[in-house]
């Protein structure tokens, strides 16, 4: 059974058809990439899978359960975490606090126990802090743990977002253009980080424009064009697909990409 099973998803933004006939699966342990020109609907697809808005029609199943129409926090609790293309850190909180928010769904202390600092709350707080610190160390961010996230460089912010998403212990991680805005050295590091995450049994769905990264890390690639899948398969196959080449190098499809 596929971990994520997307069937015939269609989405309209008040009349504008953003996605249509989108069907694909992500198998457990895979790195699957979604590519396509700007406006192809990649981020829309991410937003639908992560519950930011429901699909107009179609089904989305995760571990066999339907997740179409769930709210983002419910999707997160099912085991899907994500990063954002334009970064969405909590800028006035410290790096450590940002990652501790990622532990939210794995912890449970509420208003009363927190206000009274009951023993269970103190224990859980300590465990949260330690778990978050481990994530930071893995991504080389331990030194900036107590710095406000807003004062970090762009590349570091991307890493904090990744640490925050991983802190939720997801089964499936959605990465929305993780390489954009990174410098060459940081991009090279990213491929290694993706490999490490994968080795910990986290399945990855990746949206990315950087083709060398996509070709490097992906097991399978889905190509979207104007909201419709036009090709799917292993990197070598997709690279030589005539439609894909036409979309990227200009050709019959080029005028429809807006």
């Amino acid at each position, binding site marked *: 059974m596929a971990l994520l099973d997307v069937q015939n998803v269609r989405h309209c933004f008040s009349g504008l058809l953003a996605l249509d006939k989108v069907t694909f699966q992500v198998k457990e342990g895979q790195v699957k990439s979604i590519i396509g020109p700007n406006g192809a609907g990649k981020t829309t697809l991410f937003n639908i899978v992560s519950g930011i808005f429901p699909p107009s029609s179609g089904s989305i199943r995760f571990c066999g359960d339907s997740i179409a129409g769930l709210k*983002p*926090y419910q999707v997160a609790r099912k085991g899907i*975490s994500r990063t954002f293309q334009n970064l969405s850190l909590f800028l006035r909180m410290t790096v450590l606090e940002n990652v501790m928010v990622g532990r*939210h769904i794995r912890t449970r202390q509420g208003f009363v126990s*927190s206000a009274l*600092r009951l023993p269970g709350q103190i224990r859980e707080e300590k465990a949260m802090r330690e778990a978050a610190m481990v994530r930071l160390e893995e991504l080389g961010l331990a030194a900036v743990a107590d710095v406000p996230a807003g004062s970090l460089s762009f590349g570091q912010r991307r890493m904090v977002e990744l640490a925050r998403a991983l802190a939720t212990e997801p089964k499936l991680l959605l990465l929305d253009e993780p390489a954009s805005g990174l410098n060459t050295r940081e991009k090279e590091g990213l491929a290694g980080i993706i490999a490490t995450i994968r080795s910990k049994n986290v399945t990855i769905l990746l949206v990315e424009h950087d083709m060398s990264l996509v070709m490097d890390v992906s097991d399978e690639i889905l190509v979207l064009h104007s909201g419709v899948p036009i090709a799917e398969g292993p990197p070598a196959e997709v690279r030589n697909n005539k439609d894909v080449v036409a979309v990227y190098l200009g050709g019959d499809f080029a005028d429809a990409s807006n």
Partner: protein
Amino acid sequence: MHKSRTTLTVISLAAIVVVVQLLTHCAGKEYYLTQMIMAAYYSIVVLGLCLVMGYAGQISLGHAAFFAMGGYTSAILTTTSFSAAAGTGAGRILRGLGVFVERADLYGGQLVTVNPWAAFLMAMLLTAAVAFLIGYPALRLKGHYLAMATLGFGLIVYRIVLGSEFAGSSDGVTGVPEWRICPGLVLGGSTEYRVANYYLAWGVTLLVLVLLLNLVRSRVGRALRSIHDGELAANAMGINTARFKLQAFVFSAVLAAAAGCLLTHYNGGIGPSEAGAMKSIRYVALVAVGGMDNLLGGLVVSTVLTFLSLRGYFGTYDHAVFGVILIAIISLAPEGPLKPVAAWFKGFTVRKGG
């Protein structure tokens, strides 16, 4: 680390509270304590609002109404005579439970009213229910829907207490009895136990401060702050944002009602001006001057300004002063005046040290 910081803060504040009392005693100006007691109760409203505005990022323009709701509910329940009801079967049971108590009225007659504890509890429950009903629809949406809903609610409450016979119309409710908290401690306005009431008021206020400091430095506090910084990302991290905003709002409304209830017993009554929109705006201004997400700043600023206001230093411009403060903060120092000062002080000490 956090715990010791909270402890240090509270010990320092407790020391200031004691010093102020000793100073007023030595200077023979113990009547200042009356306004300090009132300022403490008003500050509880500001502390609660600070949680909603500064941490959860939601604006409530109805906190005066929640304050009044707490005050009026307990005032009405503890002054209305339930003599007839107390004679019925259910009334006898309530009497047995201590909900109804007999006391002498001003003219020596017997009066059956609701026990202040029970009235307090009912006021809290009522306020929580009302805050839930207002907050539930408004907080499911993003944006400033709560501000609009609470503004409307505040205006309605003001009109109701002003226009209703049972709330004493424009006179409000008077003759609210003293509240025997425990043997030797009476919450009431008589000068004979003014000092005890001063410590009671400030003890409660510092307790609320500790609870809120604990809260904002916990999982719940981080969830609220993350909603403020990025609601969508917070939701994507698994935080039920609507629920947390609602919980913070209801908690804050209940704190305001508790403050209203306590102050009503201290003052022996409550009037409709407590429910006015200008009062709500005043609380918002005090949270803003305190630095929004700064509980300690909110408490200090609120105490000082409320004290000055109650002593009449702002004269007929009382409401205008708070309006001007709000405008000045928003245009000159949106993060509150304390932050630039703190940054300047930090820079000064670093330069000196380096």
